[in-house]
Structures are given as structure tokens and as C-alpha cells.
């Protein structure tokens, strides 16, 4: 009698645990962390996806691409948003912990916009001029056809993928000018440039509201382009980059379903709504 009672208890506890596990497993949570450039895009994806699949929760936070990749390595996020490719040293850390190089998924294209204040008469800048401005070699607007005033340079913090991409692509790996004011998030850069008549900043094209995009030329002889859909698609806009999702391992189950949805027509339409460019 005693034995059968104990057996019943064990079966009961196991049943409760099993039901709990099934209930827990049914309600899936996907955590997404990383790029501030992509945070609005990721939030829109999450909202739309959760509306369609209410049993799945998608939690999105920013912090920068570097922060997201660290979280992916530490195991504190399922998906990392990154506005730059993963570095070799970061892949090495993933290899050490997960025996995997990580899975890279291109989810959108972005023309990295260069902003100036609406009142600034400068209309276009070449890559070389941007290089000179951001490395501190060129400090007055008059040197690029603007007023005789000091250029106030705004940029992103070093945890940002945009910071890294701009440094590697436009500055060819050189360091930013020490006078650059680092701001947390593209929205902060846009805000600063909107208020500062002599300011210049860079960031995702989706953020470029209320300020003026500068046309960017490959060199002083070539035609300048703003990051429009046509210019980016045609490859004419010089500062174009992919936006990525990274997972530790090949996505399966709910995570795969979520990523497949992002790459579907529906997911890619969100990319266009937010102001970026679809990958397909």
C-alpha cells in the first residue's frame, strides 16, 4: 500500500513536470539583441510576427552590434542583430564555446547615410572628403564648399556596428578624429545634427528624418547619390552595407520559422516600411 502510494506520488510529480514542460515549451520565447541601427526594424518584425503567431514571444533589445555578438557568445540571446559582419576574433570565441562559426543571415540592405543640418548649403561630399572630415584632416566647411565655420563631427560609440563599418569602409581602418562626439544610437546622431547647423553625422538611412542627406560620391569626378532604393539597388550609392542576423548554430524549430518569416515577402515588406532595402 505504502509502495503504491509512493509510486502514485512519483507518477503525479512526473505528470506535473511533464505538463509544465509542455506548457513552457509551447510558449516559445526568442530573444533578439544587438544593433541599434536595426532595433526599430527588429521591433516591427517582432510585433508583426507575434500578431501572427501569438504563442511565440520575441523580445528585442539594442545595445549595439558588438554587445549583441557578445550576448550570442555568452548564450544570453538567441539571435544577434548586427550592422557589420562578425569579426574573426568573435568567430573564434564562438568556435571555442559552441564548435560553430555561427550562422550569418543577410536580412536587409542599408545605405549608410551621411547627414548635415537642413540649413547647411553643402550638397555632396566624396568618400575622400568624408575620410578627411572624420579623421580630423579637414575641419572647416569652407574647404568643401560650405560656410567658414568649424565642422562639428558626430558619430557612434565603438560598440556600434555602424561605427565599425564606417571606420573600416570610409576611413579604411584609420581611427576617428579625437574631436568626434560619440553618441549612443543613430537617433541621437540625427537629433544632434538637426540641432547643430555645423554638424555632420552618419547612420542608417531609415533614421534620416528631419535632416538633410548629403549626396555621396565615390570620388570628386563621379556623380553623387543619396541612399535611395534605386541607388542602393543599382549599387551606385557608395556606402552600402548588409544588415545581418546571427545565430550560434543552424536555426531549428521556432527560431527557424521566425527567420524564414523575416526572409519571406511579408518580412521583407517590413524592411521597406522601416526605410531599408530588401535582400530579395
Amino acid at each position, binding site marked *: 500500500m505504502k509502495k503504491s502510494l509512493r509510486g502514485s506520488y512519483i507518477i503525479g510529480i512526473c505528470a506535473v513536470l511533464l505538463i509544465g514542460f509542455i506548457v513552457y515549451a509551447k510558449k516559445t520565447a526568442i530573444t533578439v539583441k544587438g544593433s541599434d541601427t536595426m532595433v526599430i526594424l527588429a521591433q516591427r518584425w517582432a510585433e508583426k510576427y507575434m500578431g501572427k503567431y501569438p504563442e511565440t514571444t520575441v523580445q528585442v533589445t539594442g545595445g549595439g552590434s558588438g554587445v549583441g555578438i557578445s550576448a550570442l557568445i555568452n548564450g544570453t540571446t538567441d539571435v544577434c542583430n548586427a550592422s557589420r559582419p562578425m569579426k574573426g576574433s568573435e*568567430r573564434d570565441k564562438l568556435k571555442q564555446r559552441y*564548435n*560553430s*562559426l555561427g*550562422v550569418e543571415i543577410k536580412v536587409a540592405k542599408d545605405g549608410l547615410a551621411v547627414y548635415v543640418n537642413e540649413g547647411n548649403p553643402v550638397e555632396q561630399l566624396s568618400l575622400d572628403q568624408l575620410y578627411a572630415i572624420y579623421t580630423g584632416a579637414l575641419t572647416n566647411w569652407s574647404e568643401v564648399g560650405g560656410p567658414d565655420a568649424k565642422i562639428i563631427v558626430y558619430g557612434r560609440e565603438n560598440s556600434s556596428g555602424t561605427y565599425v563599418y564606417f571606420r573600416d569602409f570610409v576611413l*579604411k*581602418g584609420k581611427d576617428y578624429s579625437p574631436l568626434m*562626439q560619440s553618441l549612443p544610437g543613430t537617433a541621437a546622431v540625427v537629433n544632434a545634427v538637426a540641432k547643430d547647423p555645423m554638424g555632420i553625422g552618419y547612420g542608417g538611412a531609415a533614421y534620416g528624418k528631419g535632416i538633410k542627406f548629403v549626396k555621396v560620391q565615390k570620388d570628386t569626378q563621379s556623380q553623387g547619390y543619396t541612399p535611395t532604393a534605386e541607388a542602393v539597388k543599382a549599387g551606385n550609392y557608395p556606402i552600402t552595407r548588409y544588415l545581418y542576423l546571427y545565430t550560434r548554430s*543552424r536555426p531549428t524549430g521556432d527560431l527557424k520559422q521566425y527567420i524564414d518569416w523575416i526572409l519571406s515577402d511579408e518580412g521583407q515588406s517590413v524592411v521597406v516600411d522601416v526605410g531599408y532595402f530588401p535582400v530579395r
Partner: protein
Amino acid sequence: MRTIALLLMIPFVFMLSAQEPGSAVDEQYQDNAAIQSESVRTEEAKKAEAEGPSVEELKAKLNGLEESYLETKSTVDKLSKIKISGYIQAQFRTVVDPDTIAMKDTSASNAIGEGAFSGKYKYAVGDFAGGKFADGSRNLFQMRRARLKVAYEAKLTQGVVQFDILPFTVGNAVTSASSGSTSAFFNGSGVTVKDAYLRFTEPWLKSIAVKAGVYDRPFGFEISYSSSMRESPERSRIFQTLFPGERDMGVSLEYIPADNLPAWAQYFNFKAGAFVGNGINMENDNNRDIIGRFGLALPFNDINLAIDGGFSGYVGKVTALNDTIAEFDADAKKFVKQTRYKYDDLDRKYLGGDVQIYYDLPVIGGICLRGEFIKAVAQPGVSDNNGSPKSNIANSKPTYMRECNGFYGMVVQNINPINSQLVFKYDVFDPNIDIEGDDIALATGLNAADLKYSTIGFGAVYHWDENVKFIAYYDRVMNEIVNDDFVHSSSMKYYTEDLQDDVFTFRIQYKF
């Protein structure tokens, strides 16, 4: 006198009485003025309140905040160059068969006599699995490592100091038939410097660096693979023997490709330098050991496969403090002693190759196949110890030159759904490749330092979170079986069969 005082007081009294009515008027006037000005101020304040702060005021405030932000930022930027990290490993280890095998004391000098249990080990157990078990301890709680690393990282320069902070240090690994000594486990001080180095990177490619100080020897893969990341509790026997402590003091040149270099330049890396050859001890002769590794890294991102590997070399010298050198005669199967000059320089030469293959298996997680082979063309040791000397000068015993080799192969399979890893490792070390088990007989004068060891290790790692992990690991240690001649030898008779020296380790690690 009193009259004079009264006369002097009169004008004072008069002055005071004359002032009183006037002051009352003034007060009243002042009160009225105050009420009026207050009402004016209140109105102005109300007006200002209604209008809100002026743009100039806000700008001034903003500028103040910006200044304060920039000041704070510069302080934070300086502080962010200091990076503190570390890990703590606490573990429980047990000898798997303590009662029947390891604890039986048969020494004639022991009053208890054969068949009883004195607590004294017949042979060393656990010396390559986290430190030798002291006599009397069949299992133990142990702080294996407690590391604190402080690094100051500027853009192109880096200074690093790493300490190991323990209540005691683990004894040095030796392979000795006679060393059942308890002292080996509890030697040394509790705080030791593991790393102390500086590193300069050139500013152009940001890929070539000079490193100087005390740090990991650039040889093979396992030496520089952090103990906090390693899936098996300890390094392979060959590394513990040839590279005790892993570190050495020296200066080296490194090529580690930066991300902005072209793809072809990312496929290889290189580290080489001149080292003292003493471990972390001071230089004590004119010989430098040249150590280097040329590495390849081939990523196949599209199929989530990576193949890494490298070739390593070690060319060094050890000065003998004894004029007797014993070299092995492979035909006679014994050491032949010869007299040479004292302070003669003897070769220390190793060659190595390593490979690591990473592949992401769907659903279950990544798998890693790792292997490494080392051939020691010349390894100076002593009669009963094949380990590298801790100094560039060998001790005063005759030096025994051996040719040895060893390898390990391991598989680490991630089980991502349960945040775990399964580990299997096979590790072989043959300290004297010119002789095999049965040939090791009484007549050859060889001993346990010439025996080949194979270790099968298997276990599981569970990652609780990003900081904490648990390791459960079993080391099945197998020694070469010697000739039956040794049955009556006091020190070697145990090696006529496989020693019962398996060890189980359960470890908790906190990394920060």
C-alpha cells in the same frame, strides 16, 4: 563718579529714544516695499513659469550637461581600457578504487604489514589529473585554479598581469616509481604570477605585434587554450611533461591578421620568439630557446565548417650541471653513460602538428575534432623523471637524453538543447620511444620514467549560464606493462600490471 556716569549715559538714551519712532516708519515702509516687490516678483515668476525657460537658459543648461558628459566620458574611456577577468575552479576528485588498490601498504618498514591499509600510496596517483593525491586522502576537495587577470588595453598596446590565487599550489607533475611523497601536493606559495607581459601592435596593418614578458609558449594548440575553456579538466600528459606551467619568459613576434586585411591574409597566423627556457624562473645561462608556431585557419562559412591547424617547433638548450650524460642505445635497449664536460649544452628539440575541425551539426549543435602530435627529438631529463627541467640548467643528477613522442585526439560534441557538451579524449605519451614494455626489464636499468601512458578521458560539461559550468570527467589511465623480471623489485613490481590509478573529477567553474 556716579554722576559723571549718568551724564555720559544721557546722550545715549536720547539717541536711542530719538531713533525708535523713525525705525518703526522705516520698517513699515520696508514691509510695504517688500510686499510690493514680492508681488512684482511673483507676477514675473508666474509669467516666466507660464512662458517656461528661455532658449538661452536651456542652451546654457545643455552646454553644461554636454561638458559634464564629455568629462565623464573621458573618465569612462580611460577606465574602459582596464579589463578585469578571471575564473575560479573548485573541484572534488576521487581515486576510483582506493581501498583495494591504492591504499594497500606492503612496505617492509611499515609495522602494519601486508594486507592492511596504512593510507600510504604504493605509487603516484592523480599527478596528471589535477595533482598527486597525498597519502591518506582518497578523495579531496580542491581549489584547482583561481585566476585574476588585469589587462590595460590601449589602441595598439596592452599590458597584462595574471595571478593564480590559491590557499596552496598543486604539486609538479612527475613520473616517478618511487615518489609516493606527500610533499609534492602542498608545495609552493598560494599566490603565483601566471602571466606578466606587454604587447605592442604596429599601427599600419594592426596585425603584427611584439610581445615580451612571461606568457604561454607559442607551441601547439593546447598550451594556449585557456583552462577556463578546456573541456577536459587538465591538459594532456605530454604537455604537462614537456611544458610544465605552460609559460616561459621571452620576447616574440606575432602575426594575427586584423579583420580589414584581405581574405588571403586571414588564412594564416604566426607566432615565434626567443625564450629563456626556464618556465617562469630567471635567466641563468646564455642559451635561448626558439619556439614558434605557424598556423592556418580555413573557414568554410557557407557550410559552417572550419579547419584550423598548425606546425610548431622548439629548438633549445639545457646546460648540464653533471658531467655524466646518459644516451639511449636502441640496440642494447639501455642507457649508455658517458662523461662529458660539466656545463655542457644539451639539445632540447620538439616538433609538433595540430589540427582542429569544427562543424555545426543540425539540431544537436557543433562538433569539434581536435588532435595534436609532438615528437621530442631530444628531451633532457633525469633517470626517474622525463619531465622538462624547470630551469635552463639541469639539476646536478646525470642527464638522461630520451626521444619521446605523444599525441591526443578528442571529440567535443555540443548538445545545444540542454546547454551541454560531451567530451571524449584519448591521450598517449611515450617518454622513451626506443623501448617497449616487455623490454623494460631489470637488466636494462630502466624505470617508470620510460613507460608509455595512455589515458582515455570522457565526461560531460554543463553550462549553467554564461558564468557557471560544471564538469564531470573520468580519467582511465593505462600504463605500459613491464617485464615480469620486476616482480621482486620494490619500486617497479606494480608496473607488471596496469596500475589502478583512475581518477574521477567533478568541477564547478565560475568565470567572470
